[in-house]
């Protein structure tokens, strides 16, 4: 028991520290907040610098790693967070939307010769549509049934691509065009709009801009009527329905938004990667992104970003351990869930929900447990 209490103390200290910062943050006037936002944006732009790279990624090129996996995981995790963290729906096939975005870029770019920006818009629309198509018939399912159906959807998308020769089958699609370059615009010696092959930094800047736009959108939604509806659904779907929240519509909206973020990332990613094939979209990626969301603190965007960063960066950083890094990663996931099951930076609202025993992160899927089922879910650990 003594170890247990030390752990608990440690957790409390950490939580208290985070809470302190949170309180400050909540009380800070808006100009201070904006200053911090802009600082963060500038830091994000400075990240690819080699002097960080030497420490952050000694085994492979830092700027490449920043684009994929780090940046890509961050955006995907923000998208999945809308579905899992905000609306409380468990999606195990999120990679499907990333694939749809990627294939949109590849097909529309090579077959129709559309340019990146046109495809970005089309890809977002297409993946949102596919989200609605998947959600329409399945969002009425409860809890874990939704989980397996989404998992199945992810596999259906991948294997259909693999079996369809018209879109390259297992060979996938090669020769995907890059975004149109604007030559000669230099910032700190980098041609920031020259989307070539060798320098990954322009793509990274593009990704930062896209990610910033997505974060702003998601934040706006979270604070609007939509966000409140999601929270209501997450906490108690039946009660929300009774109070007049059209739950199905809002769940569908969450699915569509999550899907379009996944799709947008797919387009951006395929715009850099030259060739894609179905094996880029394995189930493991869905699981990894979900791990990132939960690890960081589902429902809280800074937490989710932190989670995605760690999940993407740690295995790269410790490439030197070569084989053992995945082993360590697996063990670390278990340990982190044991010591901080609510995630590293949980959303306060979710934590409050959890403390009340009504949902919060306990709501695994569409099925939102009430006080009894919540405890049933934990197997009545008393």
């Amino acid at each position, binding site marked *: 028991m003594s170890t247990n209490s030390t752990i608990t103390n440690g957790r409390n200290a950490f939580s208290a520290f985070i809470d302190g910062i949170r309180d400050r943050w909540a009380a800070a006037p808006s*100009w201070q907040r904006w200053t911090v936002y802009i600082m963060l944006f*500038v830091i994000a732009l400075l990240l690819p*610098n080699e002097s960080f790279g030497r420490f952050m990624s000694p085994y492979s090129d830092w700027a*490449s790693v920043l684009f994929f996996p780090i940046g890509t995981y961050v955006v995907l995790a923000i998208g999945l967070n809308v579905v899992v963290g905000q609306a409380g729906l468990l999606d195990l096939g999120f990679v499907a939307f990333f694939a749809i975005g990627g294939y949109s870029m590849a097909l529309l770019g090579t077959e129709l010769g559309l340019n990146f920006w046109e495809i970005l818009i089309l890809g977002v629309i297409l993946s949102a549509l596919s989200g609605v198509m998947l959600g329409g018939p399945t969002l009425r399912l409860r809890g874990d049934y939704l989980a397996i159906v989404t998992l199945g959807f992810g596999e259906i998308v991948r294997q259909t691509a693999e*079996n369809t020769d018209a879109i390259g089958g297992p*060979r996938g699609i090669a020769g995907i065009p890059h975004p149109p370059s604007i030559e000669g615009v230099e910032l700190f010696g980098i041609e920031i709009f020259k989307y070539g*092959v060798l320098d990954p930094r322009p793509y990274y800047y593009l990704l930062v801009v896209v990610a910033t736009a997505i974060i702003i959108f998601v934040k706006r939604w979270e604070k609007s009527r939509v966000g409140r509806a999601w929270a209501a659904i997450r906490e108690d779907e039946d009660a929300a329905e009774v109070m007049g929240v059209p739950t199905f519509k809002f769940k569908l909206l969450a699915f569509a938004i999550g899907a379009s973020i996944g799709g947008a990332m797919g387009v951006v990613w395929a715009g850099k990667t*030259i060739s894609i094939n179905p094996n880029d979209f394995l189930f493991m990626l869905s699981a990894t992104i979900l791990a990132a969301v939960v690890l960081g603190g589902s429902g809280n965007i800074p937490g989710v970003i932190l989670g995605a960063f760690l999940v993407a960066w740690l295995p790269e950083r410790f490439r030197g351990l070569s084989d053992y890094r995945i082993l360590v990663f697996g063990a670390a996931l278990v340990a982190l869930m044991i010591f901080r099951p609510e995630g590293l930076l949980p959303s306060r609202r979710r934590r409050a929900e959890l403390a009340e025993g009504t949902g919060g992160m306990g709501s695994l899927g569409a099925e939102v447990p009430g006080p009894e089922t919540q405890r049933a879910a934990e197997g009545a650990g008393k």
Partner: protein
Amino acid sequence: MRPKIARLGGVLAVGVALTVGLAACGGGSEPTPGGGGASAPTTLKIGFMGDLSGENSGIVIPPSNGAQLAVDEYNATNPKVKVEMIKYDSRADATTAVSLAQKAIKDDKIVALVGPAFSGESKQAVPLLEEAKIPNISASATNADLAKNGWKFWHRVVPNDGVQGPAIADFISGAAAAKNVFVVDDKSEYGKGIGDAVRAQLKSKGVTVTDDALDPAATDYSSTVNKAAAAKPDAIFFGGYYAGAGKLIKQLRDKGVDAKFFSGDGSLDKGIIEGAGEKQAEGTLIGCPCRIPTPDESDEKVKKFAADYKAKFGADPLIYATEGYDAMTTFLKAIGAGATTTETINDAIGKSDFQGISKQIKFDPTGEPSAKSIYMYQVKGGQIGLLGDTTTAKLG
């Protein structure tokens, strides 16, 4: 509004200052590339990229050993310019290959690369090497489309699947005299490619072809086996890797389907015998563009290579070991002849024409090898033995 903007400006200014500072730091510690060139014994770096620790490392470790052997032999002659080989373990993942290539170009400043080992990673990593003008020779990437990209710095020392597939198909319809063939692939980039090449060639010879596909990660192939049993074929061709091939052979034989079983270079591994069982695997025929030294080798050069290899690595040279050695030797010959920059090395490679261990090393302008022999191997008594060139080999 006004104070906000002012502060914003302040923040930006700080940001800019920071960046400039960092950029300056970065620039200052940049090592000087190539080092003037004139000063005597320098060391050039040549990379080797491929799946060195993943599931398909069985096909990549032998060529990496072969390349290492070539480098060690070269350095032992005490040349003016020594060579160091750096291994890049891509685990056959294209994204990893790209960032490793970036690192190899920017940080390690390699002058040449043996690899990337597989076709999938080649598709994404070679464009980088191309832009950086780094000559690269793959010892094992056999996808036919790779040569169609107009790459100037890319080469390979093995004939592609577009050569291998038809050669095996000719053998099936010729030496094995099959009229009805069941062709199955494993839905991988490689398996599907070679499977389709075999299908097309067989059909052009008027052979009846039935096809199917399977998932190499699955274990239960009963639906494929039932389909094969219903088709009553004289021969079965499997496009894919040895793990899938082994399981498929066993399940076919257990169902009483005893048509001759053929496969391509991806299945050329002892694992096929282990997976199928010695009894079931007997007689399996495997085509390969590779030249593997066999115990009853007559060629002195190949014999010496096999002996040196065994002495150094404690194992017999397996698939693509000779090709890895030859690929590296091509670079070493260029460097030995005085080429030290990437572009001069590439020019020298384009002109190379010598008898390697695996074949005559000479390249077409597209980077393909001029020698296009495909060899047929057969499982006999639990061992994979060389049957001969597909155009001349006979079935016993």
